[in-house]
């Protein structure tokens, strides 16, 4: 493992946790770093909504097939199990789990994943979601990498709370709801941009994120401005 990148990642994540940070972009950074540091092919942060359904907050890749694999785990899969039990679920070889999760294993295999880890996101004794890591090749995970992944899952959880300002009384439930709504907003903006520029959802997300970064804006604010057509967003076609 690249110790320097690891140290840099934690510094960068901490730096990002300032008052007005962008939750979705932050979580995306976290999933990207999971992929580059932790021997993962793809990563996703899933948060449970009020009904206990897992919803993707960020993924290292916004391709539809990957997002579907995350969502599929509302029926079966390591993420669902991790969320329900609150303990890590680590599968070295997915082909051995075909009886346990027939649909999940089939789809994961089709996309090209051989191993998976799901790590709980816990807050005040409550599991609020899970960090999901996929790897193409089957085989054991480095225990040190799993520890770091759990640390990153904890950082992701903290970020959900950090987003709120201290000036008013809020409760966990409501904070998660607000976080989920910002993801809905991003999806709406992705759709509008994808249609307008005739591009796919991943490209639309990349364009939105690129614009937000280039202009030092929060992704959610850019998404809202795009949907409301409330300001010219040069390069995003409005």
């Amino acid at each position, binding site marked *: 493992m690249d110790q320097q990148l690891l140290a840099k990642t934690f510094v960068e994540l901490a730096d990002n946790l300032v008052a007005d940070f962008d939750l979705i972009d932050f979580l995306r950074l976290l999933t990207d770093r999971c992929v580059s540091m932790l021997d993962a092919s793809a990563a996703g942060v899933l948060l449970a909504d*009020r009904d206990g359904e897992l919803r993707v907050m960020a993924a290292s890749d916004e391709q539809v097939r990957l997002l579907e694999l995350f969502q599929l785990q509302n029926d079966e899969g390591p993420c669902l199990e991790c969320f329900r039990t609150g303990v890590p679920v680590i599968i070295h070889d997915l082909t051995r789990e075909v009886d346990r999760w027939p649909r999940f294993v089939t789809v994961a295999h089709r996309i090209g994943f051989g191993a998976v880890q799901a790590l709980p996101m816990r807050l005040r004794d409550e599991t609020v979601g899970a960090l999901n890591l996929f790897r193409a090749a089957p085989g054991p995970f480095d225990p040190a990498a799993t520890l770091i992944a759990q640390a990153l899952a904890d950082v992701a959880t903290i970020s959900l709370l950090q987003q709120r300002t201290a000036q008013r009384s809020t409760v966990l439930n409501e904070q998660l709801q607000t976080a989920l709504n910002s993801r809905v907003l991003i*999806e*709406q903006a992705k759709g509008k941009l994808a249609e307008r520029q005739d591009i796919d959802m991943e490209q639309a997300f990349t364009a939105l994120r690129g614009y937000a970064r280039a202009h030092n804006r929060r992704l959610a604010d850019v998404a809202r401005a795009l949907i*409301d057509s409330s300001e010219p967003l040069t390069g995003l076609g409005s």
Partner: protein
Amino acid sequence: MSKAAVSHPLCSTDDISEQLEELQLTLGEGPCVDAFVRGSAVLTPDLLATELQDHWAVFADTALEAGARAVFSLPLQKGAISPGVLDLYANIPTVLDTEELADALAFADLATLLLLDTRIDETGAPTGGPTPDRGFEDLGAYRAEIDQASGMLTDQLGVGIEEAFVRLRAYAYAQGRRLADVAADVVARRLRFSPDAEPDQAEEET
């Protein structure tokens, strides 16, 4: 409160809640206004708290006079769609526990869909098809495609996000199809909406 008239009260259950709405409309301040602007819930367990007195100087005093002691404002929203705010009050200091807040949030979600559903008829969807409980199947599984498709329709139809979502739902009802399936067709570009056609006559390509 609804967006169209900044804070036009749609419905109040009693005199006190009606006064609270009128008050915020008149003053342009209060929890409901804040909830709408911030897009997140504003929970005020006790209006006598000092910092609140500073924050909503006039509202806090007048609301107390009207008989309210705790006020909870929950935004009705789905991404950029925000048709209004749900205001609840209590006449004694009240901290909502986890379960009560979950109930309130669930109620706000339901109110959002019902409020948007009232606009389906305005878009010209057939009234025969939809059943009275039409909104509730959608409360189940979340599908990102529904939000993506709504975003796509804003461009295809040249309308705002709220109307795009309403038109998508109206089409699904009219066709007797699941909203998630219709949305998936839109995202996969198998189904397009055209501004000239009625929602139920959208041109379909296979």
